[in-house]
């Protein structure tokens, strides 16, 4: 089995180019903050940032000047409020955007992952968004003569996927909220995996139904513990809700945002240093007690 292990900085420099369409996957869970921070450090420009929920990561990347355009379906700070940076950039006309409902966004990824030219959705009667985004089209159902709404495939240049565990080839297992990680990996041209743990092939093969991403899709495997903070990794550490709340305040003023980026992104070489810098109190606060799945029997055949 060929090892694809490399440093996250190398994975980004090899696989992410200026102007690329990036999908850093995850619905609240497993958001690959460390990879986004590395993209900021490497000062990538003119990126198209696609994600159902841009979350703080794309707010930060937009503040750092990486983004030309954003593709999304819910642009909020989940449970807190709005994403102030992206919102200001859109309101001021400095940032392009392309918008869907969650289902439209996820259908685009599923079409991209499936090699299909479009996927249908039933009409919702809410046509304002459809009328303003020419990517939405209509197709006549040949059985009933009624119309369905369709969206085209989304095929990112790069998908970045954080996982709980994978082997060195990139066969990856995820549990907890699995959002759109599998679809993003299959839709993308290149795939960067970050992982809490690199495990032996035998661990993966002990439970093949748990594997969502096959290694042959993967270009780089980066061992990156705590990659997702302030998002979380189910079973590994908790979501740092207080950071999400603090960002709402902090991001009211651009100087504060740039100070944050200086200190926590440009000012640290990598995720290990970032985590170290967060300090023992935060480490303690985000610790999680164990709750294990019961095994299943595959049988020796």
């Amino acid at each position, binding site marked *: 089995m060929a090892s694809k292990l490399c440093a996250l900085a190398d994975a980004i420099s090899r696989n992410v180019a200026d102007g690329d369409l990036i999908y850093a996957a995850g*619905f*609240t*869970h497993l958001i690959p903050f460390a990879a986004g921070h590395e993209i900021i450090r490497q000062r990538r420009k003119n990126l198209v940032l696609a994600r*159902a*929920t841009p979350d703080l990561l794309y707010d930060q990347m937009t503040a750092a000047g990486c983004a030309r355009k954003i593709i*999304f*379906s*819910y*642009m*909020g700070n*989940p*449970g*807190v409020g*709005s*994403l102030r940076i992206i*919102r200001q950039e*859109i*309101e001021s*006309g400095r940032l392009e955007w392309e*918008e*869907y*409902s*969650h*289902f439209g966004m*996820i*259908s685009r*990824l*599923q079409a991209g992952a499936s090699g299909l030219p479009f996927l249908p*959705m*039933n*009409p*919702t*009667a*809410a*046509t*304002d*968004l459809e009328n*303003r985004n020419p990517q939405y089209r209509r197709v006549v159902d040949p059985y009933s003569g*009624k119309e369905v709404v369709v969206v085209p495939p989304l095929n990112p240049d790069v998908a970045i996927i954080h996982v709980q565990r994978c082997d060195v080839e990139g066969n990856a297992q995820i*549990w*907890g*909220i*699995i*959002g*759109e990680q*599998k*679809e993003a990996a299959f839709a993308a041209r290149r795939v960067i995996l970050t992982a809490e743990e690199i495990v032996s092939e035998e661990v993966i093969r002990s439970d093949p139904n748990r594997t969502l991403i096959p290694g042959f899709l993967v270009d780089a495997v980066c061992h990156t513990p705590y990659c997702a903070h302030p998002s*979380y990794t*189910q079973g590994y550490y*908790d*979501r740092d*809700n207080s950071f*999400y*709340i603090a960002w709402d305040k902090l991001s009211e003023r651009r100087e504060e945002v740039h100070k944050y980026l200086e200190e926590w992104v440009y000012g640290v070489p990598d995720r290990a240093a970032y985590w170290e810098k967060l300090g023992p109190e935060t480490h303690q606060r985000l610790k*999680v007690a164990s*709750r294990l799945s019961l095994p299943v029997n595959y049988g020796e055949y």
Partner: protein
Amino acid sequence: MPPTAAELMTVNAARLLRDGETVFVGVGLPNLACNLARRTHAPNLLMIYEAGVVGARPSRLPLSIGDPTLVSGSTLVCSMYDIFTLYLQRGKVDVGFLGGAQIDRFGNINATVIGDYHHPVVRLPGSGGSMEMAAWAKRCYIITPHQVRRFPEKVDFVTSAGFLQGRRQREEVGLCGGGPQAVVTDLGILEPDERGELILTALHPGVSVEQVRANTGWNLKIAENLGVTQPPEDEELRILRLELDPQGIYLK
């Protein structure tokens, strides 16, 4: 201690749920309303989250709709594509909770933009899953404080469909969901009439019709049999205050 506005809304929303139903839950008050219903009259309420979690039993109050407490001890976790196709579009969701910056006369909701879409005055978060929930959940409920800016005659942008310009217009699209069935506010309850127009059907105790009309952006009709909601019971308030939101994050 008398109920706060949030408690009043939560208790009244909880009472709209029936035992054994599947509910598409959002964070905040809908989450509290569902958990209250589960601990009172609807122990078999099945909570579904758009993040892909079915049968959640959160042991703490989730800040976000994707909190890990929703997953641990839940019945089933699936992908977002599955949630939107197999559960929502297939018509397997009985109740959905909606929110937004504006709700209009026909229950249409705006969660997208104030002003022109391409030159926004205020850019809001956008649809998320609400476009589909409003279309395909069998019944939808809206929980929102009653303020005139939240209840314009016509929303700037229809993020999710109520009855459009009237019930017939919604029916023509052939949606599997029945549309908004009630808006629960801190003043009372609005429900659609036979034309799909939201009218005042109940007041909370101590609230006047004039108060409600003053806080509504259109010429609000009053139901012939205007009712008064049952005040929250001690047991409902006890569960909310002591068990579900002891720190008063959402209810104060």
